[in-house]
Every structure is written in structure tokens, then in C-alpha cells.
């Protein structure tokens, strides 16, 4: 079987960590919890980080099994299918959200009114192709571009240091604001869930687990730094700037003279979006094929494209509706996928271990 290395897996994690957090989220969070949003972010990241040991344990317990098979063995086909339907929705809406936010960003930057058709044509064939060729092919592509993406991201952060910044004012929000923000933005997290889906395709040798932690921490630190610099730069007007990573460059008075320096942010965001959509589209198709095992990969891709285009065009894809949905009803879905599902998996691991232990003790007694 074609498997991906730990490095490729780490690169996928970093891309998932960047998803939906580097453009609109800092400003949305500021509106609710002010600069304390950084603490909300840290709490959500820590909760995410707890999923990593669960994933590693699950992978060691079932080294070659698919998540679907693990769940089917323990919970039965129907419950597994329901879980997969929920995961399918989770990844579909994540993909839609990534696309919506980036589309609005490019609409502002490229100076056009509507170019949704061109955006579909530019993105969908490429991500479809990535899905059809498989996780190994697109993770190798992402691995190739990883350096460029990281360099672009860090360049945006570093350039912002050349403009006046001052420490954000912390501890201005109350507990209610804090927890509301925590709940409202939970949908943009759960970045490690994708790893559970492709657990049979990841090759982790002994001692390589720590690399996954390294990649995760790098991704998380970069996002936290982005939030910090963004709030340090804009302070009370943070809620007005919807494209955090790009806005760190755009409003640098010193760099305005150089011209469109924001092209760095544009290229970085474009690549990140493309890779994130590939990951989420792959996750959607994987869930789809497990729900309908008789259908082919191509069929799942076509279904994705049709639902994606129709939903975007008719209803949910409208930016404001999409963003408000992620804050009001999608968090229910996210709480199940991000936290309840890993707890179920943890219980499965513990039960398996117990059985193993019981078998061992029985053998020794005999």
C-alpha cells in the first residue's frame, strides 16, 4: 500500500492547523473576546493537541486498520455510517468555509466584483485531481511547497515588526465572552481528525511520533504569533481587518512605497487554501466512499463538486451565512467530531488493551 512518511504527515497537520485561522478568524474573535482571543486560541489548540496521543495510540493498537474498520468492529455498521456522515459534513463545511473566506479575500485584492465561476474553474479541477491521485501524491506536492509556504508566512510576520506595534491589552473580557468565543470558533479546530481518517496510510516507525508533535507545535506557534502581532498592530481596530495575514503587510506605511508587497501574502494564502481544500476534499471523498462502498473515487469527486457548487451558489456559500453558520450551528457538529469521537476512540483503545491484558493473564494462569 502507498503510505506517507511522518514528515509528509506533519506537513499535512501544519496545513490543517492554518485552515480558517489566518484570515478572518483573528478579527472575528477580537469582536467577542478582544485581545484575550489569544488565550481562547491557546485553549483550543491545547484541546486539539490532546488528540495527538489518542491518534498515536490508536495507530499503534491498529497499525494497518482503517478507522472505518475499527469503528465497524466495535460499534457496528449503522453507527459507524452515521459517524462517517457527520464527518463528511464536517469536512465538507470546512472546505466550503476555507473557500468562502479566501474567495472574499481575493475578490477584494484582485479588484473584481464577482468571479465565482473563475474561482471554481481554478480550484476544483486541481483539488479533484489531487484527490483522485491519492493522499501520497498530494502530500508529496504539499511537502515540496512546504518551505515556500512557511517562508511566505514568516515573511508576513517579520515585515509587520517594522511598523509600530505595542503590546495588546489583555484581560479585558469576562468569562462569558471567553467561553462564548471558545464555543463559536470550535468549528475551525479539530485539525488532527484528518489523521484518524488516513491512519492506515501513515507509516510511523518507532520513535518517529515526536516529529508529529514538533510539526504541530510549529504550526500552532505560527498561528499564535500571527494573532499576537495582528492584535499588537491594530489594537482596537482589529475587528475591522478581515484578512489578518495579508493586513500585516498591507498597512505597513514603510512598505507601501515598495509597491504591492502583499503579493507575498497572496501567494502564501493561495497555496495554503489550495492544499487545505485538497485535504478536506480528500476527507470528504474518503467518508463518501466508506458510506457508499460500491461507488468509485471519481464518482465521489463529482458528487463533491456538484454539492459544493450548488450549495455555494444557492445558499450556504454566501459568505455571511457561511461564517454565521460556523459560529452558531456547526459548533455542535464540531464538538462531536473534535472531542466526543476521540473519546469514543480512546475508550476503544482502552478496551482493547484490557482484553489484551486479560488474555495475557489467562495464558499465564494456564
Amino acid at each position, binding site marked *: 500500500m502507498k503510505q506517507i512518511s511522518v514528515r509528509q504527515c506533519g506537513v499535512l497537520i501544519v496545513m490543517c492547523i492554518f485552515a480558517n485561522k489566518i484570515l478572518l478568524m483573528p478579527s472575528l474573535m477580537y469582536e467577542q473576546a478582544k485581545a484575550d482571543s489569544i488565550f481562547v486560541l491557546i485553549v483550543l489548540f491545547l484541546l486539539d493537541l490532546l488528540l495527538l496521543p489518542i491518534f498515536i495510540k490508536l495507530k499503534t493498537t491498529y497499525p494497518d486498520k482503517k478507522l472505518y474498520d475499527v469503528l465497524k468492529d466495535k460499534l457496528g455498521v449503522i453507527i459507524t455510517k452515521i459517524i462517517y456522515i457527520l464527518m463528511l459534513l464536517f469536512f465538507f463545511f470546512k472546505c466550503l468555509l476555507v473557500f468562502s473566506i479566501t474567495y472574499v479575500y481575493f475578490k477584494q485584492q484582485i*479588484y473584481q466584483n464577482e468571479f465565482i465561476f*473563475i474561482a471554481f*474553474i481554478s480550484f476544483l479541477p486541481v483539488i479533484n*485531481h489531487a484527490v*483522485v491521485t491519492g493522499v501520497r501524491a498530494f502530500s508529496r506536492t504539499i511537502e515540496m511547497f512546504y518551505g515556500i509556504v512557511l517562508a511566505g508566512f514568516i515573511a508576513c510576520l517579520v515585515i509587520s515588526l517594522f511598523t509600530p506595534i505595542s503590546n495588546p*491589552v489583555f484581560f479585558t473580557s469576562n468569562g462569558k465572552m471567553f467561553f462564548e468565543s471558545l464555543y463559536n470558533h470550535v468549528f475551525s479546530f479539530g485539525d488532527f481528525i484528518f489523521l484518524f481518517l488516513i491512519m492506515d496510510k501513515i507509516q510511523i516507525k518507532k520513535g518517529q511520533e515526536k516529529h508529529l508533535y514538533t510539526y504541530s507545535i510549529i504550526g500552532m506557534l505560527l498561528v499564535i504569533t500571527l494573532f499576537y502581532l495582528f492584535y499588537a498592530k491594530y489594537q*482596537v481596530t482589529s475587528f*475591522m481587518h478581515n484578512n489578518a495575514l495579508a493586513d500585516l503587510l498591507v*498597512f505597513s506605511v514603510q512598505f507601501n512605497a515598495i509597491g504591492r508587497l502583499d503579493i507575498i501574502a497572496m501567494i502564501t494564502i493561495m497555496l495554503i487554501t489550495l492544499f487545505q481544500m485538497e485535504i478536506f476534499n480528500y476527507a470528504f471523498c474518503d467518508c463518501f466512499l466508506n458510506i457508499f462502498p460500491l461507488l468509485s473515487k471519481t464518482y465521489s469527486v463529482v458528487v463533491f463538486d456538484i454539492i459544493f457548487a450548488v450549495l455555494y451558489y444557492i445558499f450556504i456559500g454566501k459568505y455571511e451565512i457561511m461564517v454565521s453558520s460556523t459560529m452558531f450551528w456547526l459548533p455542535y457538529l464540531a464538538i462531536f467530531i473534535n472531542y466526543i469521537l476521540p473519546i469514543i476512540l480512546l475508550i476503544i483503545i482502552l478496551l482493547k488493551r484490557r482484553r489484551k491484558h486479560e488474555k495475557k493473564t489467562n495464558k499465564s494462569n494456564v
Partner: protein
Amino acid sequence: MKKRPIKVMFKMPMVIVFIFILIFFTPLAIYSPGENRNRGVVTAIGIDKADEQYEISLLTFIPTANQTYKEQNAVISGKGQSVAEAIYNAQIAMGRTIGLAHAKTTVVNEELLNEDVSVVVNYLSRVASLPENTVFVCTNKTAKEMLESSQELTSHLGLKLEQVIGYNAKHLYVTDTSLEAFYKGYYSKTKASLIGYLTLEEATEQEKEKSSVSGMNESSQGGGQSEAQGGGQGGNSGEKKHILNQGQAVLLKDGKKVALLSIEELNGINLLNTKSKDQIISIDNVEHNGNKLSMQYKIKNKKTLITTEFENGYPIYVAQLILGVELVEVSGMDDSLKINTEFSEVTEEVARKIEEEIKKQYTASIKILRENNADVIGVTKKFFIEHRKEFTKFVEQLDGIDDFLNYVTFKLNTIVQPD
């Protein structure tokens, strides 16, 4: 048997995707008209309010091929009951869709500042994509006249409006004078901000004549400025005016103008701002060899140490200011006095007099800020950050946070030394 390379290529899905993209985009790129035919690039925007009507003036850059290095600029305007309507009318007059993403300057007239100006600019930055780093200035006449005069400034001196005000932003204002800086003040707890102020003055008869001759010359060269008429209101208002930069600024509270600050008042406000240097301090009646002289010193260096505390429940703002000064001019010059930066001595009398002058400026500026409840120097924020509990308790006893500045005791210790 070997497979043909073309056949192999077509078996690769990425090639098909690539060809598909090429087929879709190539005709689109070839047949779509140039962007400049549909879109007008606005480099500055002016907003006026008169007789309950808004007038939006747009300084547009029209990209056309010519053999000179001159830009083809025009001021086009539109009127309407709302900003949206005025922009719509200006757009019709221009015959192009307006793009504000390149607007470097936003000018408003004084009348507009009688109401909350954020309502107007908020629409432009949120809906019409006016960038927040645009320079935001006010003028005594109409914004439209300011834009028209700025064209002359650019064509004769190569100086743009944002460059003129840029010096003030760097040396005079507490922050820069961008729309972003305005918003930062507006959305802060004290809701106070500063924006730049440029005046327009009528030209003398002689200058008007001279200008009409040079104007004729320019048009004969074929690369001169164009004076477009938009919606029946645009074009040159006929009167030639000069842009004067006197280093003034408008103090805004809740987005409304509360005071027009002179350069001296701004210097007082900026006294503790280490970025603001090169101010001239004049002192009179300095005794030297039995003569009374007037001396001008330039602030070359500035160091500050600011501490805040609550003493007996009352806020105290203590600033330690170390000034490095240089003697630059002496009136009533004495032969024995050499103006040399390296050897100019700051006597006890000079230091005392400079200190007195500095304190006078500082007191006057604090008085203005107190009178207008407009804390643009961040005193309230500093207390909030450093003594949050005491600050919150203290403000609860007041009518509001605006009142806080009136209860702060300011202490200024100055050390004057030669730079």
C-alpha cells in the same frame, strides 16, 4: 510496442486539467477588454458636505499612452443625498467603475466634521474598499478644491498631497494621520483622534495670470492636466488656490471636530513623544555680557521616562524629560557669542528658561485636552494598563471615562542639556 508520447500524456489526468484550464482562460484573456477601459483608478478622494448634500470628488489617474512623463489626472465629482449616491453619480460621470484601492489621500471639508465623520468614511472603507492606510486630512475650503490644487502641486513640483502631510505625520502628530490612526482613536476608550489640516488660500492676481500662461503651455504640449467635468459639477472651480501646510491638526472627539490645533499646541501635545524632534524653543531676555538676547534652541534629542501612580486614591502622571538642545539662532547678536553646536553652552539661566517654556507648552496642551475631553496622548490607557483595579474603581466614581483626564495630576521634571 512503445506507446506514443501524446497518448501517454493524455493518460495523465494533470495534463487534461492543464489543457482544460488553458481552453477556458485563453479566450477569456484574449477577448476581455483592458481593465483601464472599465475601471477608473482613484488616487485621492474628497468628501464635501453642503446644503445637506454630499459631494464626492475623485482625483483619477487615467492610464493612456503618451510621450511625456506626465500623468493624465482629472477631478471628477458627483453629488447625492448620501455618500453611496454621490459615488454612484461620480461613477456615471466618469463612465467607469470606481476602484478606491489605490486612493492614497482622503480629504474632507470642515463642515463634514460637525457631525460624526466616521459614518461617512466607514461606508467608504467597508463597502467601497477605501484602504485604511490612506492619508486622512481636513481642509478649510472644499475637498474638491483641495484635490484640484493638488494637481498643480504635482505637475509643478512633483509633490503629492500625501507627501506634504507626510512630514507632519512623522514629526508633528502623535500618530500618523491615516484613516487607520483616526479609527484607532475613534474606537479607543476615549474616542479621541487627531487628523491633519491643510489650508487653501486664494492666489494673488499676479499668480493667477502666471498660472493661466503656464496652463496654456501645458495643454499645447499635449501632456497637461485634464479638467474633467463630472455630473455637471466637476472640473476646475476657476479660482486658483494655494495649498498651505502650517502644521495644524484637527482634534476630534466622537468623530466630530472639537478644536483646531496650532503647531505650538501640537508641539506641547507631543512633548513626551520621543519621535517628535526638531522643535524650536524661543527664550527671551537671556543675559550675556550685560546684553539681553533672544535665543532659539532646537530640540535635537529627547528621552522620557513616564510613570503613573495613584496617591491617596488620585491618579498622578509623572514624566521625566531629558532634552538635548542646540542653539540655532540668536537675536540681538553679541560679538563674543559664537553659535557653534559643539561649544554652545546651556547656562543655568537658559536651562531654567527653556524649562519654563516647555512647562508652559505642556500645561497649555493638557488644558486643551481636558477642555475637550480628548485624550489623544494615551494617559487613560496607560493608567488602565498599569493600575487596572484602582483605575476602574476611580472611573466608577466619575460621570464617565472622559472625565478621568480632569482628575489626573501631571508632574513634569525637565533636564535640559546641550546635545
